């Protein structure tokens, strides 16, 4: 019994230590972003701000210069939203359709196709840069938000298809057969039978894709036009654009702003993520 209490204490001690270690940078960023430059210069790194100010946040959002534009992160943040939301939705929906076709409408070569898609998950970003640039140029959507959306959809498909295939493979084939006998076709079955039971895996896909696409820097810097740059690229420019003194507080605020949406998605939908990953097959 006593032994048990000791080991339990030790366990919590370690867990709290790990949590503190993980949260420390977050704390430093947050407190720094609320300090004035003077306070940063004089005080310690981990001390709480004694006169909190939201000035750095306002500047990061609205007036800070990244490159030649001095409008803060706001326009780029909107760019990111405009690019991420369609890309996430399209790649998730198409992935769901792919997964459905690969599991319940097997065709000659469908297993090969799936294997090929799996390989797609392991292709590093860098490999697709040049071919993709040429393709976008040929189609005439380079340097635009459409091009960027297209790249993210294509790159994300391998993952979303994999997610949905592994989920749908647990759905009994007789469900689809019954619907076919009832007179339903490919899309009716997808919409009426499969989609209503796809909630958990949908959440997984959306979270995964949102995180990937929002946080992406490389595709953004390569494929976006100057007026469609995502917030990650702008953040980089903002931090590196210095006019005299380095404004750490503004940099920190900007970094938090850029990370906020993914944080929010995790906080709101995190529990679905775990639930979706562990959700079992559907029993009729």
């Amino acid at each position, binding site marked *: 019994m006593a032994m048990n209490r000791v080991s339990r204490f030790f366990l919590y001690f370690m867990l709290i230590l790990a949590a503190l270690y993980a949260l420390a940078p977050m704390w430093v960023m947050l407190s720094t972003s609320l300090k004035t430059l003077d306070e940063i210069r004089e005080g310690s790194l981990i001390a709480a701000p004694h006169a909190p100010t939201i000035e750095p946040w306002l500047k990061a959002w609205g007036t800070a210069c990244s490159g030649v534009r001095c409008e803060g992160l706001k326009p780029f943040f909107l760019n990111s939203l405009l690019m991420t939301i369609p890309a996430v939705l399209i790649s998730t929906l198409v992935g769901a359709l792919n997964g459905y076709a690969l599991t319940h409408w097997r065709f000659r070569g469908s297993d090969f196709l799936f294997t090929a898609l799996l390989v797609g998950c392991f292709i590093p970003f860098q490999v697709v840069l040049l071919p993709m640039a040429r393709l976008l140029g040929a189609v005439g959507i380079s340097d635009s938000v459409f091009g960027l959306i297209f790249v993210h959809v294509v790159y994300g498909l391998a993952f979303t298809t994999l997610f949905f295939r592994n989920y749908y493979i647990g759905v009994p084939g007789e469900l689809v057969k019954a619907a076919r006998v009832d007179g*339903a076709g490919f899309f009716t079955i997808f919409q009426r039978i499969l989609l209503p039971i796809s909630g958990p895996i949908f959440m997984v896909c959306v979270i995964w894709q949102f995180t990937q696409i929002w946080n992406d820097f490389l595709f953004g810097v390569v494929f976006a036009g100057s007026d469609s740059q995502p917030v990650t690229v702008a953040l980089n420019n903002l931090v590196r654009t210095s006019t005299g003194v380095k404004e750490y507080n503004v940099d920190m605020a900007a970094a938090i702003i850029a990370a906020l949406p993914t944080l929010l998605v995790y906080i709101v939908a995190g529990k679905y993520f775990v639930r979706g990953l562990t959700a079992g097959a559907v029993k009729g």
Partner: protein
Amino acid sequence: MASLGIHNIRKVYPNGVEVLKGINLDIADGEFLILVGGSGCGKSTLLNMIAGLETVTEGEISIGGKRVNDLPPKDRDIAMVFQSYALYPSMSVRQNIAFGLSLRKVPKAEQEATIARVAKLLQIEPLLDRKPAQLSGGQRQRVAMGRALAREPQIFLFDEPLSNLDAKLRVEMRSEIKLLHKRLGITTVYVTHDQIEAMTLGDKIAVMKDGVVQQFGTPDEIYNRPVNTFVAGFMGSPPMNLIPATLSINDGKLYAEITVGPTAAKRVQLPLVGFEMSRLHERMVDGAPVLLGLRPEHLTDTGRSKGAAANLTVPIDLAEPTGADTLIFITLGGVRCIARLHPAAVAAHDEVDLVVDTSAAVLFDPSTQNAVAFAAD
């Protein structure tokens, strides 16, 4: 409504397993076909092929005289009950039943009436607003049944539709199905493991084994004139006794000689009444070994016997009262046999006088296991 033709159907699954090896079945418009056979013999596969859910490797399926091999399921006008029920998990019972109707553009009011009708028939009225996950196995099975019965298709396909119901409900549902079939006259293919369902519902029975139809005929033919020992053993409960015997021919009359009792000390000659020499297989000569097939009810007590018969006194190994009958286990020809007697006939003796109705017997060739002789009708 339509006839159903299955001609030389073969099925090889992509993994290379040949599941059906040339099936031939023809049933007329409005007939009720029962498919029976051991687990894994290909019954569900055959139903799936009739429905158009599995491709046909070879052969032809026709509905109403028209080849349907390449017709998709929705154009075959079929309603099916799946072995695993396959209820749509996100829909309520009501929506499950309505799904097929609304896809076929049945007017709303008519849908409501149909749902009410099948719900009453299947005693699922209180369940209409539940989801499948909130139902018991037997309730799910009735919903699956309701989904099929809501329509009046060309052909019904039922894959063990009553297997999960309690005994009372099963009897009720069985007669409902029979009544419904009588009323609507829809061609039906019905898979079952239940002997009584097979005998009472079927116009025709097909007994399958390892992807081959062993016998296809009326219940009466299957029961009384099984073509081989597999069919003889499969239909009927308890199954037909297969007694090792020796054929003997005396004065142009046929006899089966068997040993009696566990010690095989006694030998008797049973006259095979009604068997004609002229119709006998050429291998069946004097002294040839045969299997004498006798149903338990043809080994019975003197009070129940009727018709041509031989008498036999045998020691009882074990008696099992089942209510209406008492089954006794005896040893004939060195194997365990079962006789069906009136309970009063089995007193506390260890011996019983049996009447053997040899005119209902079937002779099998032990080497091929095929039937070689039946009594003349």
